[in-house]
């Protein structure tokens, strides 16, 4: 049945991710100048790939919704935007952790690549806010229109590395300039994280459909985020001058997985709530 298939896929994803992470942390050769901290790339780049892919799916689903008005497409658009924001957050958090070591600063305010990625994140957060605050039937149409606008900015973000002066390393995969083993492991990780995102999207999509069925439009936001935001500034101010390079690597991995696991836990609690609500209404 569907559930069996889901759990089989989940198990596959776990194994694949474990393999990818092992490859990235242990097998991959150490980079010459950046040392072990470079291994953050094996979570940073796949997260970016996944985020861009999901935003693209969101764009396609939105167009399809405007064309056919199918509730499935709307659920898919809502799902991909939310999961995309999660992956984009991982990009935006692991990036500065690496940059603090490699560049010596958390954020370079005049770097177009960084700004445009942040802008993309803001865009899709505003998309989610929009979905939450619009009324009744107009939500899906307005959100689809907004999604199309948001996606128009994506090519700008993608090309920012090439058009503007930036410190951000350009995409190097499949170029002869890197060790083929690194490229190989990067591809494994990209695939693993893509599978992982499909898994989360699947989970989230089923929930969105349930939510549509019981017409529970108002979904609660994660309250834990507020506590996290209050703790975050403390970390930035408390950074001592000399930190062992390896701790940046651990911080990057911890942050990335903290976000993924946190999001999964959030989804679980939401699912429990939805199930309860569905049982009360008698739909499902």
């Amino acid at each position: 049945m569907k559930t069996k298939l889901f759990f089989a896929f989940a198990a596959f994803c776990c194994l694949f991710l474990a393999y990818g992470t092992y490859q990235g942390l242990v097998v991959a050769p150490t980079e010459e100048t950046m040392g072990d901290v470079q291994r953050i790339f094996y979570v940073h780049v796949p997260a970016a790939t996944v985020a861009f892919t999901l935003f693209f799916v969101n764009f396609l689903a939105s167009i399809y919704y405007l064309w056919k008005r199918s509730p499935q497409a709307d659920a898919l658009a809502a799902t991909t935007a939310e999961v995309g924001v999660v992956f984009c957050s991982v990009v935006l958090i692991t990036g500065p952790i690496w940059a603090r070591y490699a560049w010596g600063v958390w954020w370079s305010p005049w770097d177009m690549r960084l700004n445009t990625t942040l802008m993309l994140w803001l865009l899709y957060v505003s998309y989610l806010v929009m979905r939450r605050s619009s009324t009744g039937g107009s939500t899906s149409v307005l959100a689809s229109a907004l999604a199309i606008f948001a996606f128009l900015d994506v090519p700008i973000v993608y090309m920012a590395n090439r058009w503007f002066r930036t410190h951000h390393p350009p995409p190097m995969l499949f170029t002869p300039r890197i060790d083929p083993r690194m490229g190989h492991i990067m591809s494994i990780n990209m695939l693993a994280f893509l599978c992982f995102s499909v898994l989360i999207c699947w989970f989230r999509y089923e929930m969105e459909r349930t939510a549509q069925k019981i017409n529970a439009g108002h979904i609660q936001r994660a309250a834990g985020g507020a506590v996290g935001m209050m703790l975050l500034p403390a970390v930035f101010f408390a950074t001592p001058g000399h930190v062992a390079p390896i701790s940046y690597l651990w911080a990057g991995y911890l942050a990335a997985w903290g976000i993924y696991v946190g999001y999964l836990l959030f989804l679980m609690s939401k699912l429990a709530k939805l199930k309860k609500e569905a049982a009360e209404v008698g739909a499902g």
Partner: protein
Amino acid sequence: MKVHEGPGMTGSFAKLAWINVSKDLRLEWRSRDVFNSMMFFALIVVVVFSFAFEREDSRPVMGGLIWIAFLFSTTMALNQSWARELRNGVLDAYRVSPAPAEALFLGKVIGNFILITLLECLMAPLFVVFYNLSSVGPLWQLVVVTLLGTWALVVNGTFFAAMSIRTRNRELMLPLLLLPISIPAVLSMVTGTTQVLSGDGSPNVQLKFLAGFCVIFTTACFLLFETVLNAE
């Protein structure tokens, strides 16, 4: 679709758009409530920032400062331009009217554009007075940057104001939607303005980028406006 003949409904697309422009401007001329509050807000921003910055070192931040003043007063004007149509169900009347929705949109955009451009013309002398400002680069470039930047803000802003008016927390939604979408445009407006004012570097790249941005987003607005207006 067949356009029904009747008073106020005859005529081409351009004529319909013009009717909207002249109606908006006439309303604004008689009440002047949007313009006055916009003007006052921009004035406050200029004065407050003039306390915060020394005259000598203000030139590198002038681009940002000018656009902060314009951006926020634009947001004020845009919210009002659609909120006005909600009274007496005017917006619903537009939706059942056989006139093309794009004509209404174009009329609104042009009306807002004229309003904001007027504001900018009136604010320019104030910037000169408070910050002892003069342009090192050629002035026509400054004019082109300002016109393109204003168009980019107004066209997106009018669209997103129409969208946010449909949500529960109306006026609050507009900045949330408009600002992230226009970040690329704002970045190049600010950089371009600073480049002309301080004379280091040519703003040609920024001009091209802004022009491209205007073309792409104007097209998208026109294609999607009817959908947004009729969303239910």
